[in-house]
């Protein structure tokens, strides 16, 4: 009794949602947890979402908001697992851990960015990942993080300014 998939849910185009959201989730993890197995985290997010998609309610949240709540939790689980296996000091360095395989990547801009964001507070790192990795707008980010839209804009602006300054300083140092 009461077991039913509503008409509205059954009409969602899951293929289209997947095609649209998979690259966003993938890049969210790339920005948020550089050095992690991004494919694995993306898979875990979608598997969780697909398993519970019948519980997704359009009247409560947009699909992206719902999906990125799941992605956020997957990221937190990942970080907690890391922290339970590594000394606290090492956890901050995971994003920039140096291995021969990652040497090439380390030189890339994203690796440089990861190095810079590793020292940011969690909230700012999350905002950067949602804004530039997942390409969510400020309103959606605000809904996810529980901040006001203007607050999100302000924090992002300050964070990018700070990153830019440190980026330029790094570049200047490398030219010396």
């Amino acid at each position, binding site marked *: 009794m009461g077991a039913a*998939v509503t008409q509205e849910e059954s009409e969602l185009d*899951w293929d289209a949602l997947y095609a649209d959201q*998979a690259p966003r989730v993938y*890049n969210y993890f790339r920005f948020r947890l550089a050095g992690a197995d991004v494919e694995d985290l993306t898979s875990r997010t979608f598997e969780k979402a697909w398993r519970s*998609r019948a519980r997704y309610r359009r009247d409560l949240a947009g699909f992206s908001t719902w999906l990125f709540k799941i992605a956020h939790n997957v990221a937190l689980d990942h970080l907690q697992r890391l922290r339970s296996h590594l000394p606290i000091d090492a956890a901050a360095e995971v994003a920039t851990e140096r291995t021969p395989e990652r040497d090439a990547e380390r030189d890339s801009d994203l690796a440089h960015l990861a190095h810079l964001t590793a020292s940011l507070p969690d909230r700012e790192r999350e905002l950067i990942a949602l804004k*530039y990795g997942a*390409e969510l707008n400020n309103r959606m980010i605000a809904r996810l993080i529980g901040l006001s839209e203007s607050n999100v804009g302000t924090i992002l602006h300050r964070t990018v300014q700070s990153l*830019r300054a440190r980026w330029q300083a790094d570049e200047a140092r490398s030219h010396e």
Partner: protein
Amino acid sequence: MNDDFLHRLRVRPAPQFLARLKSKLDREPLRPRVSVVSTVLAAVLAGASAWALASFALRGEFAGLHWSVWGIHAAGSEYVAKSAPPRAGSPDSRQGWGPNPWAAANRPAQEPSHKNTAIATPGVVPIPQSTTAAPGATTAQYSGGVGLVQAPPVRLRMGVAPGAELLVRRMVERFVRGGNTLPEPTVGTTERLLASLCAAGRPLDFVVVPRRMTAAESAGCNTPWGGGAVEVKLGSEALVIVRSRLYGALPLSTLDIYRALGKTIPGPGNPGALMLNRYTTWNEVDRALPPDRIQVLGPAFDSAQGQLFRRFVMQRGCESVPSFDALQSADQEVACRDVRTDGAYASAPEQYPALLQKLQMLPTLLAIVPYGTLQLTGDALIASPIDGIEPTPATIASGAYPGSRIVYLYANRNPRVSPAVLRFLKYGLDALDMDAPSGAFVPVPRAERDQIRTSTLSTLTQ
């Protein structure tokens, strides 16, 4: 560093990863949701019923009302069960099918409209104006081009077999642009058209059909009225089944395709009867095939290419079912004609990039496309061999590839008619003078084409 720079750091995930994950997700059923409200309501009702029964028992009234209480409950339950229709999306209403991801993007193809009903009707019937009229033609006849010197009216009578309308349209358009007029072609079965070609009273002057004339049919044209028939090989039409090259070709037989896509198929338990097709994976169709979900995108059924697909592949597959002969003729027609509308087959996106994207993302997805499209895609797609035969220019030109057929034009050589036919062919063959496939049409090689043109025109001018 600015916003653009940060956005540019994004990358597209590897297609193989996306496809692998999607394939995994596709195996995840959409589990029904248990509504909290209805669960609570059910619990309250159950509790109340239990409380009422206990009250009756405690007050010593249970014995007297026992049957009536159960009678009321029984009747109430039955009424609810009978009156409540299956809820949309419930397992019952899905007939055992999982969620249909194509439902929103591609509504099940509509059954043929009146146009196609006419095409499907045996016998010779006029082609509706909308299916064959040249652009701008609004009257019952193809009208001549504006500003051209009008030639004397050519009163030709033309017959077209179903599916060849696109090819004929191309020829007719060229003819009309030359300042000629042509009555609407009639469409009918190949047998009827060929029989009409040389019949008394000159019902038709030339016909376009998808097979060669038999010796008996040819002999039928050697009458005083007929004067023999001239054969012109116009080219071939071919549709191919493709998959993204990332996942390789899926070799199929016409029987597999029919069993996977036919709306009704002969039941294994009762070969003389049709059953609704509920195969969901290819290995249910044929154990040798992989356990991939049956998902095929193709032309809309009411399009010319949709008609071609039915006639090329579905008809052949249907007729190759071992128990086909056990079906009644009406069932045979239904079995061979109707394609699934439950999501296993859906209309392909019209834009090629959208189709390609879907094919790259979904490893189990197949698409039916014109041969010309395959040629344009480079290495992105790979065609399935059908009945072990690869679609190549050679197998298509010979008609060996099951997804192809050779189209012929037969003209009446009656001296009173042949000048007009000659005039039509001079224009019409020009329209087919191409070296690369166009859509489903595959031209004959240039050398052969030149030879056909020369011999045809010389035969008609003799």
